[in-house]
């Protein structure tokens, strides 16, 4: 098979996958008797048409950058971390414990401590599957799935029996102290010109963008990243080069779990300001779609996270203003994962054939 030009492989393949997902989504909408055009308009209007919409779009984007980076980090080590969901929820636990432990005097201190707490708890939840993969060869995909469910059970237990304040009925922790309140974009000078009313997007967005840079630097500028990528491409070769598989699996998964956990400073600390059940709301899974869509590169991840932020906010608006169920966004999510992750060979074959046609035409003309 002819190879695709590099630019096509990097940019065109995901775009065509996205296009295919969009076409199928439109067909789905038509088949349930809805207008795709109208749905798209509602989504664009609701997600991008106002400062309010952007406030939510960017809020979701922030979460998805973290989980997308988490999946990316593990992917480069050849590990498919489906456990972002559980790691994010445990990260939320870390955030809650930090925020509730002290009457924080200033949000910067609280943020630093909570970030650490989130990363440590998320990483810890990834550590056991990582260890089992590294030392005992237990398939990480299965163990991380199991750990998602175990995480959910742990949180139910803690929220119902331990963290729930007396007299409260819903399973949630107490509200965090005032000092742990993160500035939202509407309170940040400069941004408040655009965001005039309270929005959930908060300073965590900048941490997410910074993490994208950090992940990029780790993967492509450090020895650790070099080893992670080499190990991910070929385990036997990595052994030849003296790369320690146990070390790489552990470090890559701890970083991945830490990143997934860190999304909780956005939703738990920045938005809900208390720990709720199922706080991550599937963002761990969306991270898979984001990473695939973003071709496992931090720049791609940020762009894909923005796309999914749009999709999520737009989808919520659909649920609000149209009779299209909010589940539409799960359908789109599934389609994007399917086309970018599982049917990528099909897309590539399609493109290669089209390129082949162009090439032979050129030859014919010459």
């Amino acid at each position, binding site marked *: 098979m002819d190879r695709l030009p590099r630019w096509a492989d990097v940019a065109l393949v995901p775009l065509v996958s996205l296009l295919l997902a969009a076409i199928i989504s439109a067909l789905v909408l038509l088949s349930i008797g809805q207008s795709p055009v109208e749905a798209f308009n509602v989504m664009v209007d609701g997600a991008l048409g106002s400062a*309010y919409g952007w406030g*939510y779009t960017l809020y979701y984007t922030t979460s998805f950058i973290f989980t997308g980076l988490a999946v990316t980090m593990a992917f480069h080590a050849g590990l498919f971390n489906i456990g972002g969901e559980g790691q994010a929820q445990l990260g939320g636990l870390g955030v809650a414990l930090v925020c509730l432990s002290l009457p924080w005097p200033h949000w910067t201190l609280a943020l630093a401590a909570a970030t650490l707490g989130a990363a440590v708890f998320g990483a810890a939840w990834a550590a056991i599957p990582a260890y089992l993969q590294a030392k005992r060869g237990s398939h990480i995909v299965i163990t991380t799935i199991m750990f998602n469910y175990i995480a959910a059970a742990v949180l*139910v237990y803690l*929220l*119902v029996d331990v963290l729930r304040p007396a007299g*409260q*009925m*819903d*399973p*949630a922790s107490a*509200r965090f102290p005032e000092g742990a309140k993160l500035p939202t974009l509407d309170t940040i000078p400069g941004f408040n010109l655009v965001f005039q*009313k*309270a929005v*959930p997007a908060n300073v965590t967005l900048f941490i997410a963008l910074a993490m994208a840079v950090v992940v990029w630097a780790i993967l492509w500028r450090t020895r650790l990243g070099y080893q992670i990528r080499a190990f991910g491409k070929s385990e036997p070769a990595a052994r030849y080069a003296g790369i320690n598989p146990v070390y790489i699996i552990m470090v890559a998964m701890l970083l991945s779990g830490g990143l997934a956990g860190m999304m909780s400073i956005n*939703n738990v600390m920045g*938005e*809900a*300001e*208390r720990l*709720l*059940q*199922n*706080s991550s*709301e599937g963002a761990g899974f969306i991270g898979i779609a984001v990473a695939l869509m973003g071709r496992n590169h931090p720049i791609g991840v940020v762009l894909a996270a923005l796309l999914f932020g749009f999709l999520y906010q737009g989808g*919520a608006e659909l*649920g*609000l203003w149209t009779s299209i169920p*909010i589940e539409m966004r799960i359908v789109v999510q599934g389609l994007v994962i399917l086309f970018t992750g599982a049917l990528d060979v099909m897309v590539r074959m399609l493109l290669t054939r089209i390129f082949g046609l162009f090439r032979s035409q050129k030859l014919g003309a010459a």
Partner: protein
Amino acid sequence: EPAIIFDLGGKFDKSFNEAAFNGAEKWAKETGGTYKELEMQSEAQREQALRRLAESGANPVVMTGFAFGDVLNTVAPDFPDTKFAIIDMVVEQPNVKSVVFTEHEGSYLVGMMAGLASKTGTVGFIGGMDIPLIRRFGCGYAQGVVAANPDAKVVLNMTGTTPAAWNDPVKGAELAKGQKAQGADVIYAAAGGTGVGVLQAAADEGILSIGVDSNQNGMHPGMVLTSMLKRVDVAVYNAFMEGTDLAPGINVLDLKAEGVGYAMDENNASLVTPEMQAAVDAAAEKIKAGELVVHDYMSDNTCPAATF
């Protein structure tokens, strides 16, 4: 334009949320007005839903379920010009109306009915999420059962400890079958969408059930003894009617105010004898008159007739 937010379980749960939906529909039909609606998909969305509706200019915004209490407390001050109404929870904000019901009273009445209808002397109660509010149902029910039949046994189960317990018909059905195995021949479900499974299993097993919130007698005609009505529909209807003039404060809808009660219709006419009805109605009158006080679990977290 008013708006309503349904809790997890959805507006077609045949029970709590559906009652609210019916109230809204009734308002729409009578006034010809339109309203906005939104169904919760997950815990973490509540605040966004609330803000979005307030932001969009909806007024008043009505929400069903105690779980909105916390977020409403933070959202309401941000929208001082919007009126909010919350059902099943007290939120003390100047622009919030809190509607609560005396579920123990209604449950007492259906408990009596169960006690009178039971042939085995054992009746069941299946709650949704294990919270004081639902224990209030169970406790009132148990008191009613014992009042009708002092020797009766009440089997109590809760479906779970999280909001998922509102929407788990499979668990509800299994619990009902389990209670039947323990001898129960009337089962009261106070469990939202989970109750659908309870009523189904009871019908399958050939025993009676008692519905909740909405009139569920028609779901299995001849198999549902009665339903404990909790007039969420009235609460929603009233809130929509009041519109932007919604009066803040706490609004207790009790038996006297017809906020709770039990359902009689052609579906259960054959199940309820005139004597049963007379006995229950007599008790209802006493409660309204204040001669009979049904203990409220939430007042001191204890129950004289049952242990949870």
